[in-house]
């Protein structure tokens, strides 16, 4: 099926597989490609997401989903007030989210500012938990490219194996798509072996059409993940935005054979929310993305709710926040 739909999607987007690289050869070519992508009907996309939100995930399915969600958490602290002590505490929680239950899995990664990377790397040594660092003048990205690249290199040099960059929304919204692309490609190069997550800041992109186009720019430029939000603007991850991004990674793999991950971030606070996202993944991109290598939650408070629900499932009684660590 992949081959068949590759051929046909290419026709759909007015290009061919062999010249996919040529779509980024000029601003005009990239614009033509992005504007040739199928549009997104807002009402239809939101209704699909809402319908999937009505899936009733109970008992064994819920237990499975909660453990998977915990394993997908990028446990995040991105505050000016972050200290080494705070980060170390968070890392401890990442390793053993529920100290009372050794069967509880660790999270996927810790996500911090570059300055905190050395602390996190040390605290997570040997755990298999990734260290993600935001970079590129997060969250606004309003810095010269050289500064953004230096920011990236510093984080990688400090030991981060995942970089969460922000795209240049100003360039995107003014139609300078190639500039956005080239910046991401440059950051990708600066990452070296570190995985690159491209934050689209969907809350600032205004339309789902823009979310789809930005997703494709991020993927074409070499991003390993596309991520919704910084968590620093009023609108963060939503189900329909994530739906559109999941459709993008699905179509991109059909076209190129390369799989790209998705990370909704910000605003996902409850187990119920997280399970809705997993349903969305399951019924949009499919099983291949139901893995921490391909889907992450950028969250902080979500973890405790997942733990409380997990405890409820095993003990049969509702838990309370006093029984979980606040870090």
């Amino acid at each position, binding site marked *: 099926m992949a081959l068949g739909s590759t051929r046909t999607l290419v026709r759909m987007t007015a290009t061919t597989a062999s010249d996919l690289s040529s779509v980024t050869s000029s601003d005009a070519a990239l614009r033509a490609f992005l504007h040739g992508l199928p549009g997104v*009907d*807002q*009402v*239809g996309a939101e209704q699909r997401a809402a319908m999937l939100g009505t899936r009733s995930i109970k008992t064994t399915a819920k237990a499975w989903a909660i453990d998977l969600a915990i394993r997908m958490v990028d446990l995040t602290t991105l505050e000016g007030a972050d200290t080494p002590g705070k980060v170390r505490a968070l890392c401890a929680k990442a390793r053993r989210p529920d100290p009372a239950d050794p069967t509880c899995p660790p999270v996927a990664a810790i996500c911090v500012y570059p300055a905190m990377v050395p602390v996190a790397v040390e605290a997570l040594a040997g755990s298999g938990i990734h260290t993600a660092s935001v970079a590129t003048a997060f969250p606004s990205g309003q810095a010269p490219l050289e500064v953004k690249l230096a920011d990236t290199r510093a984080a990688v040099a400090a030991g981060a194996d995942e970089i969460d960059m922000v795209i240049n929304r100003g360039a995107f919204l003014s139609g300078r798509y190639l500039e956005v692309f080239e910046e991401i490609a440059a950051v990708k190069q600066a990452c070296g072996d570190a995985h690159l997550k491209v934050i689209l800041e969907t809350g600032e992109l*205004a*339309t789902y059409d823009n979310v789809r186009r930005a997703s494709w720019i991020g993927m074409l430029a070499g991003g390993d993940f596309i991520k919704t939000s910084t968590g620093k603007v009023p609108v963060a991850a939503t189900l329909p935005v994530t739906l559109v991004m999941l459709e993008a990674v699905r179509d991109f793999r059909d076209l190129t054979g390369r799989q790209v991950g998705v990370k909704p971030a910000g605003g996902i606070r409850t187990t119920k929310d997280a399970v809705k996202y997993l349903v969305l993944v399951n019924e949009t991109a499919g099983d291949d993305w139901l893995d921490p290598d391909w889907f992450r939650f950028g969250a902080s408070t979500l973890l405790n709710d997942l733990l409380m629900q997990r405890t409820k499932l095993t003990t049969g009684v509702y838990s309370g926040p006093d029984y979980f660590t606040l870090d």
Partner: protein
Amino acid sequence: MSEARVAVRKTYKLFIGGKFPRSESGRSYIAQDANVALASRKDVRDAVVAARAAVKGWSGATAYNRGQILYRVAEMLEGRRDQFVGLGLSAGEVDEAIDRWVWYAGWSDKITQVYGGANPVAGPYFNLSAPEPTGVVGLAAPPSFLGLVSVIAPAIVTGNTAIVLAAKDAPLAAVTLAEVLATSDLPGGVVNILTGDPAETAPWLAAHMDVNAIDLTAVTDPALATSLEEAAAGNLKRVLRPPLTAPDWSADPGLTRMTAYLETKTVWHPKGI
């Protein structure tokens, strides 16, 4: 003193597709002291073909354009007023008939607003209902001239095309009206007029599967009306039944003769960015 001039008499023929053919059957009959074409089932068939062919252009014309053409019919009729009086009609009836064309002409670009509208659905959708012509309408015409005009004008003003079965004993005004229509910029086929015996032709029209609606107002024989309505069920024609009491054609016509041949189409579209 000169000899009395020998008059040139008129041959009263059918009106199909904008032309004036004789009945394909070659038959005629005497009515109102004239030889009049006696339409056959094949004339019905030809008239339906002509009416169907005219639907696309006529229903696709702008309402403004249709209104002007109906008004043009009134102008032409006004000019031939004496001709109709000469057929034995009262001047008052002819005047009322002229005024009726004018009245319906004005409805062409108003009925959509009066009969359609926006629907406030509970969701992010644009939703609009608008009337559209049903297509080809068969009309059994009443003998009165005002009645004839009062059944044709509302059927066509909204974009339908019509096959008119003129009353058996009063065909001359109908054929003369055809001459008016033929000189009023009305596209050929929009109105087709068949003279003859509706008791013979109406069953073919009522059963025709390419006719969308039928008006039985002037069918005074209840058994015939019932059998025509039964035949019309074959393709679920919209049926205007005969009224309980004889219609008063001089009364305010209201909307029902227009809405009887209108379909309501409702269009939905999401509202989003």
